[in-house]
Structures are given as structure tokens and as C-alpha cells.
């Protein structure tokens, strides 16, 4: 086995950073959101350091990043709640925050609370009045699975039901673009599945969904495109399938002897992407099926206690951790989005 130049996994992100959006280019009607060199400073703190982003219409777009990476700032700029310090942004062909855009926009804030003594239906009707439309509350309640609970007080709703009601509120007025900030964080698995079905339904109707979520499994399952932001910059964006490497090897291992990981990394074939180690699992992307025995032998010869070997596609969590390990030395693989 040829030994490539040793390169620590952390220094080579598996998903390369890309220059996301060409500064000079077209903004066709098929594009829902375009950001170009978008910047935001809060006094001495740089929240966005020149974000380039493009979201196609009719897609479910996942937006990921560690805490404090700038996710909420970007969503607030795009919904007109924060002024950018520089750069350009265009939403549905107009200026973020303009009334013309807001007529076609839905937004579910991250930390919302509803008046507990209103009913779900009343809340949707009140929001319809604010949107200046007749609320299609019965349809919306049915869509989010609250048709039987629509006339009950919100105080009697579970957290998950309130979150689904928030989703319904964001859909009042048939928006073309919906911003959802952590819409599944309080949901149980069944609730999350329900929301996934709703998002798929919205995509089928041609509605663009901008999904800000830290639940990577959800994003991986439902989003057809995604972007990762870190320290105010988009470090990767593209189709979900393209961002996830695969197939590859996932190897559950025991405690690694000191230096074993670097030693094995150096001895892997040169075309294999650098492996990562996350919570007892070594992931080696880009391994072909006929290379598996050789790679496993390399691991065992290198002193790695191998317990289980799976041939699988990289998960979004692994891709996410790989991306961030390259930028946050010392990150132990904790997946934060």
C-alpha cells in the first residue's frame, strides 16, 4: 500500500469549501434567494463575513452551522428583521423586508410563544388579518394534523402541537417562500416525520422552504440542497447528495492507541479521502468495494481494534463534523448545528 504524504484529517475537509455564488451573474426567476458578499457587524463582532448564497425556487434548502455561526443573523436579514452592514441580498426578486416581498413570505421564528388562551384557529385568523388575507385556517390545520384540535385552547397543546401550529401560521396566505427556524426541535419522532411530510408536500406545490435546523438527520432526509455556515462565512453549499461522500467505510473501533490514527491515515491509499474519528467510529470515504479487505488490514496492522465494519454512504453529521474539524482544531466531533 502506497503511503501518501501524511496529512491530518482535520486539515482536509472532506467537503471542500466553495465559492458559493458568483458575484456577477444572473438572477433568474427560478432563484428565490441570492446573497452576495452579505456582511453584518455588531460593533466589534463580525456576524456575517461576506456570505454568498443562492437558493432555488421550489427547493427545500437546509441551512446548517455551529452555534453562533451566523445562521439566525442571515435569516433575520432575509426576513427584514436585521439590516445588513454591507453586500446585497435579494428575496423573491425584491428587497428583503419590503412589503411586496413580505406579502409572499412565511416565517416561523425560533423562540415563539403563543397566547395560551387563544385557540389554534383564532391564532391563524389573527395572523391572516395581519397578512391582509382571508385565513384558510381549516386547510392549514388539516395540513399540520391539528384539525381535531383547532378549536381547543393553545394552552392545552403539547409543545409539538404548538410547533406544528407555528408551521401553519407561517403558511397563512399561501407564501411562495417559507423561513422555518428550528421547526422540528421540540417534536417527537412521529411529529418530525409529520413535519417532513409537510415539507415534502410544500416542495411538491412549488413552495420554497428555507430550513434552519440543528437536527442533521432531518435536514439530510428532507433537504435537496444545503449550505453550511461557520464564523460568518458559507463554507459549503450544494445538492445534499453531492455534499455527502459515499460510499465509504464506517468502522466501529475500540480505544485507539496513541498515534495509531495518524499512522493509519498515512498508510491509506492516496485516492481515499482522509478518515475521521467520531465517537468510536472511524469513517473512511471514497473506498471502493474491492479495497475494503486491504483497508481493514491496514487498520488492524496499525493497531486499531476493529469491532465492526459497514460499507455505507457518509451521513450528514459526519460531513458536518469533517467540515468543522478542519476549521475548529480540537473539535472532538460533537455535532453542533
Amino acid at each position, binding site marked *: 500500500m502506497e503511503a501518501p504524504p501524511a496529512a491530518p484529517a482535520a486539515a482536509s475537509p472532506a*467537503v*471542500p469549501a*466553495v465559492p458559493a*455564488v*458568483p*458575484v*456577477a*451573474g*444572473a*438572477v*433568474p*426567476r*427560478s*432563484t428565490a434567494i*441570492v446573497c*452576495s458578499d452579505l456582511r453584518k457587524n*455588531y460593533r466589534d463582532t463580525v456576524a456575517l463575513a461576506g456570505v454568498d448564497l443562492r437558493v*432555488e*425556487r421550489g*427547493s427545500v434548502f437546509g441551512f446548517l452551522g455551529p452555534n453562533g455561526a451566523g445562521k439566525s443573523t442571515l435569516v433575520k436579514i432575509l*426576513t*427584514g*428583521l*436585521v*439590516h445588513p452592514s454591507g453586500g*446585497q441580498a*435579494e428575496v423573491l*426578486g*425584491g*428587497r428583503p*423586508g*419590503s*412589503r*411586496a416581498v*413580505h406579502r409572499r*413570505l*412565511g*416565517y416561523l*421564528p*425560533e423562540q*415563539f*410563544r403563543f*397566547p395560551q*388562551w*387563544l385557540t389554534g384557529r*383564532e391564532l391563524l385568523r*389573527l*395572523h391572516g*388579518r*395581519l*397578512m*391582509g388575507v382571508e385565513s384558510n385556517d381549516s386547510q392549514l390545520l388539516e395540513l399540520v394534523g391539528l384539525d381535531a384540535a383547532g378549536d381547543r385552547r393553545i394552552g392545552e397543546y403539547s409543545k409539538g402541537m404548538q410547533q406544528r401550529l407555528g408551521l401553519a401560521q407561517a403558511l397563512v396566505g399561501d407564501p411562495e417562500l417559507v423561513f422555518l427556524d428550528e421547526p422540528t426541535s421540540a417534536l417527537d419522532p412521529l411529529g418530525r416525520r409529520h413535519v417532513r411530510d409537510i415539507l415534502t408536500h410544500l416542495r411538491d406545490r412549488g413552495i420554497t422552504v428555507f430550513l434552519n435546523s440543528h437536527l442533521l438527520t432531518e435536514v439530510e432526509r428532507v433537504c*435537496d440542497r444545503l449550505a453550511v455556515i461557520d464564523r460568518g462565512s458559507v463554507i*459549503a*453549499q*450544494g*445538492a445534499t447528495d*453531492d*455534499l455527502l*461522500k459515499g460510499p465509504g467505510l464506517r468502522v466501529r473501533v475500540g480505544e485507539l492507541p496513541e498515534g495509531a490514527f495518524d499512522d493509519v491515515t498515512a498508510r491509506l491509499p492516496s485516492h481515499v479521502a482522509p478518515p475521521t474519528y467520531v465517537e468510536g467510529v472511524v469513517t473512511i470515504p471514497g473506498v471502493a468495494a474491492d479495497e475494503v479487505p486491504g483497508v481493514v488490514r491496514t487498520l488492524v496492522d496499525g493497531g486499531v481494534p476493529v469491532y465492526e465494519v459497514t460499507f455505507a454512504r457518509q451521513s450528514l453529521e459526519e460531513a458536518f463534523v469533517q467540515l468543522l474539524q478542519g476549521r475548529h482544531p480540537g473539535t472532538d466531533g460533537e455535532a453542533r448545528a
Partner: protein
Amino acid sequence: MTQPGATHPDDPRGLAGPHVSGTEAAATEAPLIARTCPEPSRAPGDTRASPTRGLAAVGPRFLQVWYRDAFVFVKLWKTNLFPPLIEPYLYLLALGLGVGFYVSEIDGVDYLTFVAPGIIVTSAILQATFECTYGSYFRMSFQSTFDAIISTPVNPEEVSMGEICWGASRATLAAAAIMVSLAAFGRLELIWAPVILALQFLVGMQFGALSLLITSKVRQTEYFNFFLSGIIFPAQMLTGAFFPLSRIPEVLQPIAWAVPLTSAIDLTRSIMLDRLGPHSLLQLAYLMVATLVFVELALRSMRRRLIG
């Protein structure tokens, strides 16, 4: 594997295909910067896309914000309505009948008659103040209600105006409640009731706006204590609500008259005691100007708070 960078241009999945016309394809030559914030997408009266600020940016949608507040309030009418109704009655009993028992006459009338306008106005401003401090702050910070509203066609000025008008409505309700009992005691001629209520709405707007201005500046509710203990409560005591201004040191009297609340109380008293005169017009003008100034300041400051 396709590199993410290569997936970029418009739509690798073909979503855009049917939508991109020849004209749009030709438009690819145009620089992006020239296409951002296109003017044609700006709707008439779109205040957020123009530099219009303050009162000039308020359109009729503020009524929907007012309606939302009122609807939520009425849903809890038992809890919301009774305490504000009972409180002025306690004042009336304590000051009018309690203290009034020891005070035979003040300013040419019995004490209950003298103090009634003061109780009306102070009850009104307290309602507006609490609604536009704690109430608005709760909706703004804890419920994210304003964020959800501003993402609709309602703009920040309309949100603020709706809040101020709702505060003024609650002030008017409180005033109306106490006026009912005053009428029963024979201390109020009902013919003046609409005028007094309209005046309380104006005073409610003034204090609602001042309170919202404070709300736009604070980062936690504890700071409201400074406003309430440092401004509102002393103002109630030193603006002629419960005793004539002539009783405070002469050197402080110009300061007391500079506080618009003094004019509000004196004007309400003039109406109720049939003492209107040219000075009443001046007082009304002063109240209106002060209200306009506070509203304008509150609207501008809230915009800065809501859109960072």
C-alpha cells in the same frame, strides 16, 4: 462525486429549466449588483423600501395590530378586566370617602369632587404605562410576536402604533370604569363623558408612547422599575392629582406645569368642574404636541430596536 462548486449555476436538478426564458438567459450578462433591490418590486406605499420613518410610515394596518391585542385581551376578560376596574374604586373609596371625611373643602369643592379627575387620569396613565412596558416587552421579547408580525406586510411603525393605541384604549377603559361610579355618586355630568374619555385616550397615547420608548431601550424587565418608580409614580404625586399644585414649593411649580400630565389633570378637572377657559385650549394644544413628539420618538426608536 460532483464538487459542490460545480453544482452551482442555476439549477443542476432542472428545477429552473422550464422557467428560464430566452430573455432571462440573456439577462445572465447583467451584473448581479445591478439586479439587486429592483425598484419595480417595490409596491406603492412600501415604507420599508423607502426612507419614510415615524408617523409618516404608519398605514391602516396598525388597526390589525390593535385588533390582535384587543382580541387576546377580551379572551381573558375575567382576568384582564376586573383588577383594572376594581383598583380605581379602591382609590375612590380611600381618597374620596376616607381622606375626604377629614377634608371639608378644597379648591372650592368637596374632596371627592376635587380628587375624581386625578383618579381618572392616574388610573388611565397607569393602564397605558403597564400595557406598553411589560405587555409590549413580553410580546416583543418572550413571544417573538413582533418578529412574526413584521414578517407580514405590517411594518414596525404600524406595530408600534397598534401597541400605543391599544395602551390608550386600555387607559380609556379604565377611565370609563371609574366614571360610571362617579356618575352614580353624582360627581359627573354624563354629557361631558365622551369629551373626558377622548381626552383620556389622548393622555393614554402619550403615556403609551413614552412607555414604548422606554421599552425600546431596555434589555430586561427589571429596568422598568426605574421608569415606574422614578418617573411615573412621582409624576402622579406632583402633578395636581391628589392636592392642588399651590401646595408644592413655588420653585417647583414651573417644573410641575412643564410635565404634560399636569395639564391633562387640570384640563380634565376643568371639564368636570365647568371651569374651561382659554387656558384649556393651550393645555390641549400642549398635550397634543407632547403626544405627537412622544409617538414620533417611540416609533423611530422601536424601529431601531425591531430591525437591528
